[in-house]
Structures are given as C-alpha cells and as structure tokens.
C-alpha cells in the first residue's frame, strides 16, 4: 500500500491518472477528500476500482476509515493499493494507515521551500515526487534548493520529477513502484499473486 500525501492541487489524482495505465499492475485506489466523489470517479473512468472516503471536514485519513473502504473493494488479484490522502501536508503525516510507503507529492508552483516547512512529512517519505515540471519556466522555483533540503532531511528517499500531463518522468516512478512490489513479495511468504 502506497500513501500519497500532498497539498490540495499538487496533482495527486492527475499523477494517478498518468500512473495507472502505464504501471502494468493490477491496482485499486482509495480516495480521501473532505467532500465530493470526483476523484474516485476520475479513477473509475480509467477502469480501475476506486472507493471515495469523504471525511466531512476531517483533514486526514485514519486507518479505520481505510479499513472500512477496503471492504468495498475486490482485493482478490490486486497487486498494489494506492491511498490518496486528503490534500494537506501536515496532519496526514501523523497517521499510519498501514502503508508500506508514504509518498510526498509536491508541485513546482507550490514553491521550493516546502520540505523545510513540513519536515515531518518529508523526513518520513519513502519517495518524494516533484510534479508539474512543465511549469518550471513559468514560476520561480529553486530546484537545487528543493532537492538539497530533501537530501538533508531524508537522504534515502527516492526522488522523481514528472509532468503527469505529458507523461514525462512517469516511467521511472512506475519502475520504482514495481520494485517496491518486488521487494515486498521477496520478503513476505504466501498469499502473493504473481505479477503480470
């Protein structure tokens, strides 16, 4: 299970829209939002199972909410489960959902100071994704500063840059996800579905 955490508008759902068709794995998605079914509908439009959790004001997902959502999915044969957390860089970092990996998603227009301002998330993340790379020439963003801060905070996190709309950089990220699944299957016995 991969727990995607980022600000509202950082491109988490668009990232999934770019990732799911290229991944080559059977995936399911739990979507977390304060309101609306929109994100789950966007995922279902790709032919991928998705359940929407509406937190009714809650600023993060909690494990029991995810557990309840999982009951609505057919997990038989699912290789990888994504949880898209409520858009927020603070509270979701606090709550363990049972994920194998937290992934910090930050977009270029948010500014290069985000790792410094939200160290709890960026210190714990197994991967840091910088999205909307196509906007690099349009906004002021110090790429060296951003990755430098990520490196100081969390030198072992995998780092990816991508433009989800064009698909640039998505393959490297998909490769890391397949690797994560391989590591998981290598270290766990039984009940594992063969990858395609």
């Amino acid at each position, binding site marked *: 299970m991969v727990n995607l955490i980022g600000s509202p508008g950082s491109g988490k759902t668009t990232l999934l829209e770019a990732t799911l068709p290229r991944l080559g794995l059977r995936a399911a998605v739990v979507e977390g939002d304060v309101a609306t079914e929109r994100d789950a509908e966007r995922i279902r439009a790709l032919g991928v199972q998705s359940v929407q959790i509406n937190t009714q004001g*809650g*600023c*993060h997902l*909690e494990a029991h909410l995810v557990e309840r959502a999982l009951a609505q999915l057919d997990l038989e044969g699912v290789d990888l489960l994504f949880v898209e957390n409520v858009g927020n860089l*603070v*509270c979701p*970092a*606090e*709550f363990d959902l049972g994920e194998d990996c937290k992934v910090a998603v930050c977009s270029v227009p948010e500014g290069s100071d985000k790792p*410094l301002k939200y*160290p*709890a998330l960026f*210190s*714990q993340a197994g991967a840091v994704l910088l999205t909307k790379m196509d906007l690099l020439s349009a906004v002021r963003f110090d790429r060296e500063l951003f990755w430098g*801060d990520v*490196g*100081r*905070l*969390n*030198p*072992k996190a995998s780092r990816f840059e991508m433009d989800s709309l064009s698909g640039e950089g998505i393959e490297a990220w998909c490769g890391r996800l397949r690797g994560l699944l391989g590591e998981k299957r290598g270290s766990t016995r039984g009940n594992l579905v063969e990858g395609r």
Partner: protein
Amino acid sequence: MHEMSLVEALVESLESMAERDRWPRVDRVLLVVGDLRQVVPEVMIFCYEVAVEDTLLAGSRLELISRPIRRRCVACGIVFEGEDAFSPCPACGSPEAELAGGMELYVESVEVEADEDDADSSDAAGDGERRGSGGSGEAGPGPTGDPDGEPDRFTRVGEDHPS
C-alpha cells in the same frame, strides 16, 4: 486538530482494555510523544480531559513524555539528537542524515487503582473519591504520590519500542 483524533483513538483503546480487564479506576496514563509528532502538549491534554468525560477513564490524567528528534548520519553512521529535522552531524559535519527517532507515539504505562471492597457493586461508577486529594479531578500527584515510585498496579500496554 489532530490531537483530538489521536486522543479519541487512545481513549477508545484504553476503554476497551478497562472493560475487558475490569479496571476499577484509571489514575494516570503516560504517553510517549516524539518531538517530530506535530502534537501541542497543552492541546493534547485538554482534549484528553474533554474526551474522558463520561467514560471509564473519567478523572484520570494524561501525562506526556517527550522524545527528542534523533538522526542517523549517512556519512559516519552515528545517531545524534537534533534540535530540528535539519541539524547536521555533530561528529563529521555532514548535512545528510535520516530520521532515527522523534515520531514515537505509544502508551508507556497506565496506572490503575486497585479495587478495594465494592467489587460486586453495579452502580459504583462515579462514586469513587480520590484519596487524599479533596475529590478534585485535577489534584497534583496521584494516590501513589511520588511519580517515580511504584504505583499500585503497573500495567504495560501498547506496542513495544526501542531502548
């Protein structure tokens, strides 16, 4: 805002244990909270006071024990305490270090008052008076007095933790 969520989950777990093991009364809950947990202690304790009202934990106190942010230098491997999540390695000066502590969140212990003589009383809840404390829910030290002394009963719950 998330202090309330954390407290609600804590109270729920403790209540189910109190029910299962028939704890007559809970005096004190010690909770370890790492410094990188974005928890404001005063808010957490206030939330606890509100959350335990009308529960089996009513009248109990929550105390927080902090744990420093610790980082492991990727260059020389030592583990050091950092003032913040960015402190460089004090031994070799390398700025790159991974998180090694500061995200702890677990119940260190729960102090439960031993039941004395009304084990079969069905309506005793709420009648209990705090010994030597004038009945106030927020009296200083609990019945065991010295916080470092041995409480009446010392129950260890929650997940295991390093050191």
